Each structure stands twice: as C-alpha cells, then as structure tokens.
C-alpha cells in the first residue's frame, strides 16, 4: 500500500467517523456544508481543470436546481418528484447554458457564463410568481429516505456523505475514461483533436452536461441543508467563490476541489467566529497559495512536503536540534 492510498483510506475513515470526533451537532452541519460545496466544486472542476473552460456563472445552475426543489415542494409536490424535477430542469438549463457559452472559448467563455449567471440572478429577483423574489422560498422539511429522519444533523450528514462519495466515484470514472482522455485532449490541443477527427464541441458539451449534473446535485443538497433559497445564492460572488475553491485546492485533480471547499467553508463559517477580518484572511491565504503552491493545495502539498524532507535530510543537525 502506497503512502497515498493509506492517506486516502485514513481520510475516508475520518469522514465516516465525523459525528464522533467533531465537538457537537453544529460542526456536523459544517461538515455537511463542506461536502455539499465539494460536490459543487467537483462539478466546476470538470470544466476548469479537465476541459480548460472557466465558468463564472455556475451559481446560476446551482440556484436553478435549488429553486426548482423549493418551488416544487411549495407547490405541493412530493420530495422524490421535486428532486427528479430539479435534476431535469437543471440539466435542461445546462444544455442551454452550454449551447450558448461554447460559442466561444477562453475569455469569451468566461464572459458568456458570467452574463448567463447574472441573468439567472436577475430572474430569481424578478420572476416573483415563481421565486418569491428576494424574500426567498422556505423548504418545510427534508426527505425521509427509507424512513430515516434527515432533520437530525448526523443522519443528514451521512446522506450527504453517501452522495458525495458517489459523486467522487462518478467523477473518477469520468476522468479516467476514454471520454475523459479526449476531454483532456481538447483542453491541451484542440486543433490537433479536431484534425484527428474528434468532435471537440460535442465533447465539451457533454463535459458541460456532466458538470451541470454534479452542480445540480449540489444545489439540491444545499437547499435541503439551509431549507431556504434566495437570490443572493446566485450572485456573481457565489460563482467566483466556487471557482476559487477549485483553483486554490488544485484544478485538474479530484481532491483539489474538496480541499478548496473545506478551506473556504471553514474560514467563512468557523474562522469568522474568531476573526473579524476573515475576508482579509481568506484573501491572504489565496495569495499565499499562489506564492508557494500556485498549482493548488493538493498538488502542491506533496511537493512542499518533499522539499521539507529533503531539507531535513540535508541538515540532520538542525532536525535534531529542533527535536530537542
């Protein structure tokens, strides 16, 4: 067993054991939030890291799924129906999103997605009949799969954990599949891929759809978590936040978005209780990451670790002194 495998298994064990080692239900809820944003970040990373397309409008799709669940439930639908409808609507939305955005690449793609995200945000405010405007929509209750009461924080956490692990598995399969390889090809060498006969646009389109699926799942979990959705969740800053999670954690990796999500959620929700200037702290962390690990925390940490080990081996006296 390699060191990495051991570390991953330990992390998995730690995740499963969360309700037992975190000090209270509040922290279990924070852990749920981290996993929900991790799924969102995974979805965005499929585009940023593997397709080479940066989207600044994914909060619009995220919110679309959340709003569909909330509106459906408020309209009298059952939980299962609401979830299915949300997936369908969000995927349809993603298709439109992708069709429009893929007209351009690079900065053009970023801008179209930004504009589409802003339009979704505007719709959330103005289509009051559907969205209740800035008063938002409350979700009365969480689903009860197999009779399990998800109002209990620990139960909800386990449900989210299962979905997260499935999402991670799906992403892993996606990335390591032949499709994933061709996607990476379109990221690195789009012209050659076209010359080789690959339909680059279609490949990117399917990548967008998969990204939209993960985003929709995260949006559905989110609205059950907060039991409330309102327009601020679709703001540009929300889209930017998830992009920051991906980049700071390490784009183009599977664990990078998870680590990035943990970083942002913890600083925003937990550190903010102790540090008033937590925005500055978050900004400073991002700058530090860029200075020392510009490829992201997940790819960069092993590199730093190896450098530290090398330094320790080269300076055994200093290491001994530190140990004493």
């Amino acid at each position, binding site marked *: 067993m390699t060191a990495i495998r051991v570390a991953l298994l330990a992390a998995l064990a730690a995740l499963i054991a969360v309700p037992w080692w975190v000090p209270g239900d509040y922290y279990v809820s924070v852990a749920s939030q981290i996993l929900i944003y991790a799924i969102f970040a995974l979805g965005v990373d499929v585009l940023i890291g593997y397709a080479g397309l940066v989207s600044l409008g994914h909060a619009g799709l995220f919110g679309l799924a959340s709003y569909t669940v909330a509106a459906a439930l408020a309209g009298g639908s059952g939980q299962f129906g609401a979830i299915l409808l949300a997936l369908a609507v969000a995927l349809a939305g993603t298709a439109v999103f992708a069709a429009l955005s893929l007209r351009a690449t690079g*900065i053009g793609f970023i*801008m*179209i997605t930004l504009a589409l995200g802003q339009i979704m945000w505007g719709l959330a405010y103005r289509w009051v009949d559907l969205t209740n405007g800035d008063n938002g929509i409350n979700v009365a209750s969480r689903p009860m799969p197999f009779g399990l009461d998800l109002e209990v924080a620990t139960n909800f956490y386990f449900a989210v954990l299962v979905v997260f692990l499935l999402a991670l598995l799906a992403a892993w399969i996606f990335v390591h599949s032949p499709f994933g390889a061709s996607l990476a090809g379109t990221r690195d060498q789009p012209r050659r891929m076209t010359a080789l006969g690959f339909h680059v646009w279609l490949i990117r389109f399917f990548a967008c759809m998969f990204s939209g699926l993960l985003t929709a799942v995260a949006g559905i979990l989110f609205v059950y978590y907060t039991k409330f959705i309102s327009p601020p969740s679709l703001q540009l800053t929300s889209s930017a936040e998830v992009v920051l999670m991906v980049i700071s954690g390490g784009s183009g990796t599977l664990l990078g978005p998870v680590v990035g999500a943990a970083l942002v959620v913890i600083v925003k929700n937990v550190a903010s209780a102790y540090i008033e200037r937590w925005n500055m702290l978050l900004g400073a962390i991002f700058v530090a990451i*860029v200075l020392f690990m510009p490829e992201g925390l997940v790819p960069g940490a092993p590199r730093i670790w190896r450098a530290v080990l090398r330094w320790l081996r080269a300076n055994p006296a200093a290491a001994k002194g530190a140990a004493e």
Partner: protein
Amino acid sequence: MSLWGILAINSFAFGGLLFLLSAGFSLIFGLMRVPNLTHGSMFMLGGYVGASLYQTWHLPFWLAALGAAAAMAAFGGLIERLLLRRLSGSILAQVLVTLGISFIVADFCLLVWTGDPISVTTPKSLAGGVRAFGLFFTFYRMAIILVACVVAALLWALLDKTRLGAMIRAGVDDPQMARVVGIRVSRLFTTVFCLGAALAGFGGIMGAPVLTVYPGLDTDMLPLALLIVILGGAGSLLGSLIGSFLIGFLYNFGQAMFPELAYFVLFLPMVLVLALRPQGLFGRSAS
C-alpha cells in the same frame, strides 16, 4: 423630451467614467493577457485615497486625483513585480491571486474608512451647472466627458507615437521576438500594469463626486469593466472607448425604457453579441 436629453448626456458622462475604468483593464488584459480581477478594487481604493487626500488633507482636487493615480500605480507595481510576474501564462493562478487581493483590499477599506459611504463634494471650480433646452447640465459631468476624451487621446498618442508605445505593441504581438530585439518585456509589463492601475485609481476619484465611494463599489463596477472589454475587444483602445459609451447608453436608455428588464438590460445584449461574435465587436478573432 427632457427625459431623453438627460439620458443622452448622462450616457456620455457615465460612458466617460466607464472608459477610465475599463481602459486600464483593457490595456492589462490585451497586452499582458492577465485578467486583472483586482481592477474594481483599484477603482474603489483610488476613490477612497483620493477622497481622503481631497477632504481630509485638503489637497486641491486635481492634485488629489493625481495622488490617487500615483498611489494605485505604486500598488499595481508591487502586485505585478512580487506576485504576477512569476505567474505569466497560468491564468488560473492569476485569477486566484487577483481575486485574493481584491478580498484583502475590500476588507482593508472597510477597516480604514468604515462602512459608511464617502460623499465627495464636487470641486468648486466645477460645481453647479447650466440650464439649457429645458435640461440641467452639471459642469462636472461634462468635465468627465472631456477628461475621458483627453485621456483617450493621450493613451492613443502613447501607443501610436512613442517608442514606449511601439515597444508595448511589439511586446504584445510577439514577446519572444521583442525580447530578442532587446526590449525589456518584463519591465514593460510592469509599466503597463502600473499605468492600468493608475487609470483605475484616477477613474475612482473622478467618479467619486458622482457615484460616491462605498463598500461594494468594486463589485458593482468590475462586471461593467469586464463587459466593456469583452464587448469592445481586449487590447483595442478604440474598442474600449466605443464599448464604454455603448454600455453608457445601454445602461441609461435600457433602464429607463425597459424598467421590467432592469437586471437584464446589460447582460442580455452581451450574451447575444458574444454568441454571435465571440471576439467582441472590435477584437481580433480568437485562435
């Protein structure tokens, strides 16, 4: 008819302000390919610094404006030399660092200047206005239009007529060849970044008597800068100018004529333009 008259004047005035905001971004992105997401923060910080120089330290307005520009140039230079230089080519890291810095700047401004808005009194020499044709024209807004045109002319002269401008254009078209020919491309990039930051800061204090300076100004203005640069095409000064006035018109007339679509009046046309012509109105075709 006076409604349309006011809207027309304000379109030019707001457009002028937007040009000061976006010209810097266009320069930096067009020439260095760096999406400077700190740009909105520089606009806001320039406004705060200029307001303090003008109202707390009682410098004359124009001196305060130049001071704000200089402060932002220094700030921009630091960012470029210490952080951005080592990230050339990696867009994601640039996005991360520029957004990270914008968080720090926004929180810093909250700390120093508190959350209250800063109202900057219009400089006495430009206070008031004139009534003509049933409309009221403030001198200050007309001055903004003039200043924007002057700055545009100066920038054009810089790029087209000076050696520095030629070096900038060379460094953009082919950094490798430019280096081979002896152009210090990295020093050039620092200069351009400082210039862009200075323009943003100048725009911030110029806009302060109109928009005031308040927390959130950076996030209100940044999407507009992005809109203009994309619409007008990155790196094209003419595109920036026309794009700014276009957005100025769209903003004023669109909000007044389609009040139900207030949130979409800017972004819907943008989606349409980009869907039909992804390189913007004046940009070169993407490779």
